[in-house]
């Protein structure tokens, strides 16, 4: 079977010969995913904080609806829609994935902040904590596991969808997959896919450890925060 003759010694040779390309594609891939998710955090987390402190139902509804639309629109369609604005290449890809990451991060930030027991905040206020102190010392640390859960989930999805960016000339591991389709070389398809999955798992692992480290430093205990996606 065609699929099977990529294993064996020949695959090791393939890796040895092509690893610069593979590494380059992986770096590009990580760059696009990383910047998108980072931008998503920078925008979504503050919005979440603001919404938690000043709950305005209709505003929250509107913001969530807009973010939800970006989640719902097919990735290729979103990428394509941005091309006349950003041109081809990495820019529209990063922006599209940034939009895509907004909802989960926002939703989890808000849920995390809102999960903090009102009575805890009351007693903090009683002890003389200012609003900012409450946020920084109580709410954020307690919300942190929720936020991290959202960030981790988003990162995994974004890494997976960044493969589609190859279609608009943005590079990344999708290049390997798409080229593999074109030249009928299964090793390329397999390597591109495996690298993307491994990258996602690795980043998820690192973020998980980062989460543990932060919580240890701030002395909070971990609660079960798996939020259904």
């Amino acid at each position, binding site marked *: 079977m065609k699929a099977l003759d990529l294993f064996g010694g020949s695959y090791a040779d393939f890796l040895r010969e092509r690893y610069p390309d593979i590494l380059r594609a992986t770096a590009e891939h990580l760059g696009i995913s990383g910047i998108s998710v980072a931008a998503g955090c920078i925008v979504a987390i503050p919005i979440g904080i603001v919404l938690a402190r000043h709950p305005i139902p209709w505003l929250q509804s509107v913001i969530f609806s807009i973010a939800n639309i970006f989640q719902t629109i097919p990735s290729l369609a979103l990428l394509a829609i941005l091309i006349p604005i950003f*041109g081809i290449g990495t820019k529209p890809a990063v922006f599209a994935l940034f939009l895509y990451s907004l909802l989960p991060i926002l939703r989890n930030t808000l849920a995390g902040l809102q999960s903090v027991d009102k009575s805890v905040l009351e007693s903090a206020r009683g002890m003389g904590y200012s609003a900012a102190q409450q946020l920084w010392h109580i709410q954020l640390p307690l919300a942190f596991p929720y936020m991290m859960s959202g960030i981790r989930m988003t990162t995994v999805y974004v890494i997976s969808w960044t493969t589609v960016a190859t279609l608009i*000339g943005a590079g990344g591991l999708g290049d390997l997959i798409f080229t593999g*389709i074109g030249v*009928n*070389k299964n090793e390329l398809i397999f390597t591109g896919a495996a690298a993307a999955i491994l990258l996602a798992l690795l980043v998820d692992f690192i973020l998980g450890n980062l989460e543990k480290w932060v919580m240890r430093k701030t002395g909070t205990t971990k609660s079960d925060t798996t939020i259904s996606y």
Partner: protein
Amino acid sequence: MRIKKGGIMRKRGITLCSLLLVGLSLVLTACGSGGKKIVIGTQNYTEPKIIAEMYKALIEDRTGLTVEIKPDLASSKVVIEGMRNNELHMATLYTGEVFNGYFEVEQTKDREKVLQQAQQGFSEHYQLKWFDPYGFENTYAFTVRKEVAQKYNLQNVSDLKPYADTMRIGVDNTWLERESDGYRAFQKTYGFQFKEAFPMQIGLVYEAVANEEVDVVLAYTTDAGLKQYDLQTLRDDKQFFPPFDASPVVREETLKEYPELEEIVSLLIGKIDADTMTELNYYVDVEHRSEKEVAVEFLRQLGLLE
């Protein structure tokens, strides 16, 4: 506590029934692809798509067959495999493809010999009839912006050598991987490489070089982008690339089943030269007219269609 079962059951019943109905209609629609159909596969650039529309118009006009076009397949290789698997029946292919690892070939740059090898080899190994050419060649060409060509006095590909290690090149998705006429072989023949090579869909390279996102691109010679962005092609002075004459290719089995196709396919042989093809590509890619409209207009001009 009594559970009101009536309402729930009805809702559940409705959901199940509708799912079943959907399922049934799907199965029927999906399987009911009756009728004699010819499938033409094309690569992901405009040229073969226009030709496919030409054949669709001709075949549907002169026979009772319907034609389906499957466009945007990733490469000529995918098209050939598709024809081998009887998922496609017809396509436009280029003679140089013969060196891309299908069967044993003799290394030659002679046009006639390459065509012969294509016709013999694909018939013998893939049961495909490779007709005589339309009359144009669409080969690779290294291309730069006009100012860059003037600045560094670039006329031949070899002229790039002293500057290549500072230049980024944009290429189509498969060139980096091709064996005999790809990047690796190029480096051996011309003796240099570029700073960085970016694979992308061929349609995107022209914009990329015009926007200075890359410095050199490997263009296709009949593409409209060359004219649209006023780019300059460099001469392949070491004759690295093989000939790439375009021909219609049809499954021999399909020709046996529908012998009338042979004559129809032959109608376009020798009728399209490079300038004409570039012009047709221009109408679609730059003037944004539809492939179908351009194809039909061309056939009418030739008197092949009313």
